[in-house]
């Protein structure tokens, strides 16, 4: 086992000489740029960020300005995606909705990483009883399939955007804990950890300086893919009417509003859903690409 790992390590060192010329980020980008799908993902993600950050400059109309006289109006030059059930500009609401989705994604992932990763690292590093207890705790959280844990947490916390973010965030903690744990377990026996310990580094130092930085790449990949899941789940909860309160422009809630009019005005539900789909696809494409670029061994 160690021999195979050593060979692997040497290969990596050889490859690392390339790293020094470009720097790690340049290298990842070079590998990423070779894949058309990954680049498509990157473009979608960048557009999503731009739309979220520059919403007031990009939106053609005020997303909250309603006009009942024009409710459910079909797409036109002035209102390219039509108007919703209150006569509001759907395009503007979609552009503003990107802000909410981005916010949700970032907060959900931060909760997952900042709580889940330390749990996983500590669990793997100390092993034994600590590991056993933490893992049963993680098992318990993973015993709620899919969106169910988030729903349960909403039931406790109550309806609302903040609670959606907290609920989805907490549901991702066990996934990050598992990921960090397996990553650290694989690394714990490696020589650089042993070396650090032999020169007297403290546990905290080994964890912060060696284990966490070295398990970053699977976590980065997972976070990108998780942006996709977070956006999907949060939109799902919005669709169920458990998220933002009206009139906030959020994609899931927009879909929920439009669903009642699907027979008479298809566009009200179609376009917000299409945006969720494209954004999620973008993060999935980028995540797949990053996985291949950062760590080909993780390829499934």
């Amino acid at each position, binding site marked *: 086992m160690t021999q195979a790992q050593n060979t692997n390590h040497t290969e990596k060192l050889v490859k690392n000489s390339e790293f020094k010329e470009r720097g790690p980020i340049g290298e990842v980008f070079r590998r990423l740029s070779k894949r058309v799908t990954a680049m498509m993902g990157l473009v979608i993600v960048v557009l999503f960020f731009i739309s979220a950050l520059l919403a007031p400059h990009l939106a053609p109309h005020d997303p909250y300005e309603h006009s009942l006289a024009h409710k459910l109006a079909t797409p036109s030059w002035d209102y390219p995606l039509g108007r919703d059930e209150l006569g509001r500009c759907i395009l503007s609401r979609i552009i503003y909705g990107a802000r909410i989705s981005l916010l949700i994604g970032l907060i959900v992932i931060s909760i997952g990483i900042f709580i889940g990763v330390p749990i996983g690292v500590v669990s793997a590093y100390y092993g034994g009883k600590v590991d056993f207890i933490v893992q*049963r*705790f993680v*098992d*318990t959280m993973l*015993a*709620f*399939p*899919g*969106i*169910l844990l988030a*729903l*349960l947490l*909403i*039931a*406790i916390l109550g*309806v609302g955007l903040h609670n959606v973010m907290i609920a989805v965030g907490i549901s991702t903690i066990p996934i990050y804990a598992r990921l960090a744990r397996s990553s650290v377990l694989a690394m714990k026996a490696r020589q650089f950890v042993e070396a650090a310990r032999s020169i007297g580094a403290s546990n905290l130092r080994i964890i912060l300086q060696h284990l966490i930085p070295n398990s970053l790449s699977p976590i980065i990949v997972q976070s990108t893919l998780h942006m*996709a899941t977070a956006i*999907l789940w949060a*939109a*799902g909860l919005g*669709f*169920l*009417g*458990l998220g933002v309160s009206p009139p906030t422009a959020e994609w*899931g809630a927009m*879909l929920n509003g439009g*669903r009642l009019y*699907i*027979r008479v005005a*298809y566009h009200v*539900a*179609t376009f917000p*859903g*299409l945006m*969720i*789909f494209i954004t*999620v*696809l973008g993060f*999935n*494409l980028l995540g*797949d690409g990053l996985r291949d670029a950062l760590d080909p061994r993780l390829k*499934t």
Partner: protein
Amino acid sequence: MTGQYIIRRLLIMIPVLFGISLIIFTIVRVIPGDPAVVLAGPHATKDVVDQVRVQLGLDQHPVKQYLLFIGNIFKGDLGASNRTGLPVTKEIMARLPYTLLLALASILVATVFGVTAGIIAGVKQNSKFDYLSMLIALFGLSMPVFWLGLMLMLLFSIKLGWFPSVGAESFKHLVLPAITLGANSTAIIARMTRSSMLEVIRLDYIRTARAKGLSEKVVISRHALKNALIPVVTVIGLQTGTLLGGAVLTEIVFAWPGIGRLLVEAILSRDYPVVQGVVLVVATMFIFVNLIVDILYSYLDPRIRYH
């Protein structure tokens, strides 16, 4: 060996089941306010609230409350819905068959399409079919279930009139919800089958089979498939469990009378006894599905038992 493995897996389940019961027990007790009022519902009279308090032992020590809670679960008593007044078990049993039917139909759709597409894509790696099916699979992974459901409804029931849009009266009612709920799993199963196929095809024993002069068809169907499908079985099993959770959104879109819809209705109306009951049932079922999958896996792949 297998017996030992099953026993070990069963033992691991105990703390998880304990954890779930504890989480569910805690729900109503961490919500601000009097748990008896929370459980009896916002419109309950004082008498009802007092009755609930005595019934659940809410005036007693938490440990005793917990034991009473567990005892009630084993008696099949999950309390009464504070919307309808009916026993929660009755409410769940009325809805559960619909969700199971939907989940099974979805997993059937996902298995048939996912495995077929995955095998062809794997055998014909880098072909047009491979690229196209994997692209569609990625679409399937990225598609919001509720949106897919609405779009299918728009096309196949509103525009074309082939299938009814809502309800659960006939087989025809099942088609669109099953496709909607199964789409995500189809994608996951297709990707898994493909990569597993690719892995197996490179192994020595396949080369041997080819070297013996067997036709490609026999090599794939008799030799490669058997081993390639082992991890796929696991994924299919796990998806069955995940579908139980995912059914929530599909059931809302198609007004399907399952427990997912029951859960959402209960959350929106703060009907906590029902929330508790549904979550308990779904999580327990999910754990047992996982257990069955693990045991099945150890039969299919004897190596797993030694780890």
